[in-house]
């Protein structure tokens, strides 16, 4: 019975956890509930991915109404991969939350914060598992609304403004998404994604489909902060509570990226998306602008959380670059970068979170000589930084390697050069922090800083070791990603 209901449980367990957090009202108890839930959820995801690897796609009829009429939960390899990624990140990070959240959020709001965190997780898992276009919208809003509130809980007053900015941008994105779903529903008469993709070939005129595609692309791009639509992200990440920043940076944009992959490759199909309009060229151009523009801005940031946020915008460029290249290694690179960036950026934010915990802020001045006072934290930051740069032996290298191969397959040597060049910019912004941390003498507040507590250090180092592990042993990341890429390009349902 439990095995049959695993797809539903994947979403219900965090939802139930969120309700319990609201009902118990005590911060530490809510944290404990969130911890238990965060450790159950990846177990379900592992069970699902093993089932998928073993016997193919799982389809679950929500409420007993058979698809395409009812809402279908559909787990294929891509879904299972994203489910596992999101839930694993949560499981690793949650032990870290207790102290970090205690230091940043007042007593009365702590239980609500964990409820929001679990709701956000519910939403993201829901996006990744549902096979229904409108249901995906509902989950998109569940995760977005809880994210707005989580960001607004940051102790800096500017967090409110950042959350408001995100609220406006996110709502525009969601509206565009609904408009697209409306058009698609009018044209095909169905909301089930598989059914929709089957009926797209029979529509009377394709022009509305492209209008829908445009709305979809812009709407979802707003949610995952593709370059010119990224303006909400740096402030949101800079002023949100540190734990929320680390969790969101690792997962939130990934769920939205999943959605666009789903529509591009599963619903519309490669021929319709890339065959007629120059979407591929546009994606590559925007990705390059993200890689260079955002990286250059990151170099000039003094708030390290903000710097890493700009770096996130740049890294999203690598993901979409892979989609734009639209061949197997490119798509593999994009999909594998979902995981590699999640792990890398998670590690960086957790390390910076330790410094915020000790110093109260994360300005470059707070990093002076901190390598001597918090050696483990800074060593972790440096290793994860190497992964952002893409040094061989780290996770970041694997993604860039696939992207480079994909560019060469098109015969675009210049693109490989640009990839290397953009990596050099990340050397500058990571190097700046490392230089200040190791080669300046500690002064002021830094003199009293000590290593962050073990409950924070261990999750941070699990993430850091994961960036090295996924740089060497890639069967669970690149192996599965290349299988996903092959399936997506072949249009396997």
């Amino acid at each position, binding site marked *: *019975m439990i095995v049959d*209901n695993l797809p*539903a449980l994947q979403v*219900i367990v965090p*939802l139930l956890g969120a*309700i319990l957090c609201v*009902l118990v009202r005590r911060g530490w108890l809510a944290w404990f509930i969130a911890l238990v839930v965060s450790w159950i959820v990846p177990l379900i995801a592992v069970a699902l991915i093993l089932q998928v690897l073993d016997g193919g796609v799982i389809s679950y009829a*929500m409420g*007993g109404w058979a698809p395409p009429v009812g809402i279908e939960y559909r787990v294929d390899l891509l879904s299972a991969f994203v489910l596992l990624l999101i839930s694993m990140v949560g499981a690793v990070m949650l032990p870290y939350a207790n102290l970090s959240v205690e230091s940043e959020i007042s007593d009365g709001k702590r239980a609500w914060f964990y409820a929001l965190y679990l709701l956000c997780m519910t939403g993201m898992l829901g996006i990744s598992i549902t096979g229904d276009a409108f249901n995906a919208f509902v989950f998109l809003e569940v995760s977005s609304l809880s994210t707005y509130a989580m960001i607004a809980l940051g102790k800096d007053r500017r967090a409110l403004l950042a959350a408001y900015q995100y609220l406006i941008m996110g709502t525009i994105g969601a509206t565009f998404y609904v408009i697209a779903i409306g058009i698609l529903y009018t044209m095909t008469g169905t909301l089930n994604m598989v059914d929709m993709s089957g009926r797209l070939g029979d529509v009377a005129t394709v022009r509305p489909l492209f209008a829908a595609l445009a709305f979809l692309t812009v709407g979802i791009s707003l949610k995952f902060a593709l370059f010119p639509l990224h303006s909400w992200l740096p402030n949101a990440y800079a002023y949100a509570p540190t734990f929320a920043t680390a969790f969101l940076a690792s997962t939130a944009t990934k769920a939205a990226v999943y959605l666009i992959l789903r529509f591009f490759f599963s619903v519309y199909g490669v021929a319709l998306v890339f065959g007629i309009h120059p979407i591929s060229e546009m994606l590559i151009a925007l990705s390059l602008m993200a890689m260079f523009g955002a990286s250059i801005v990151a170099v000039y940031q003094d708030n390290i959380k903000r710097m890493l946020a700009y770096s996130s915008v740049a890294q999203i460029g690598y993901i979409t670059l892979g989609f734009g290249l639209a061949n197997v290694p490119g798509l593999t690179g994009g999909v594998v970068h979902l995981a590699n960036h999640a792990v890398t950026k998670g590690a960086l934010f957790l390390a910076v979170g330790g410094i915020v915990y000790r110093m109260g802020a994360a300005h470059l001045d707070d990093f002076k000589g901190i390598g001597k006072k918090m050696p483990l934290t800074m060593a972790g930051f440096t290793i994860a930084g190497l992964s952002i740069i893409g040094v061989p032996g780290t996770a970041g290298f694997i993604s860039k390697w696939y992207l480079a191969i994909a560019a060469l397959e098109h015969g675009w040597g210049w693109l490989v050069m640009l990839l290397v060049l953009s990596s050099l910019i990340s050397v500058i912004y990571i190097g700046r922090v490392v230089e200040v941390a190791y080669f300046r003498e500690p002064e002021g507040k830094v003199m009293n800083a000590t290593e962050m507590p073990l409950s924070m250090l261990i999750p941070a180092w699990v993430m850091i070791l994961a960036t090295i592990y996924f740089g060497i042993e890639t069967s669970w990341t690149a192996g599965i990603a290349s299988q996903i890429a092959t399936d997506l390009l072949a249009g396997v349902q």
Partner: protein
Amino acid sequence: MKFDTILRIGTKLFLPFILVFALYVQFHGDYGPGGGFQAGVIAAAMVIFYAITFGLEAAKQAMPPLVLEVLIGLGVFLYTGVGIVAMLKGGEFLNYSALKHDPVHGQHLGILLVELGVLITVFATMTAIFYAFVGRGR
């Protein structure tokens, strides 16, 4: 407000009817227009009406914010709980047919309970939002 007899008596006269109308919309939702969302908003309007006439403090005594916070969770819990019971009885999540031996009875019971959950959460959330707005700056 002490001397506004008409307002005070009028409000008190209205309150039970608003609640009954909310419950009518709620339970008639099975057969006609209506349901938990609408009923929840109407029920919340009752508290808001009371607060407008008698003041926020009186309303908070009648419907304490603490109770609201619990109700917000409880409504969703009822909704999810129905789904989980259906699952335990061998159906899919929220498959009401599995709730009772007769699927039609099961569907009736399921939608009734789920909508009740919606009513509770919508009522509590609307009232809490009202309290939050009105209480600002105090």
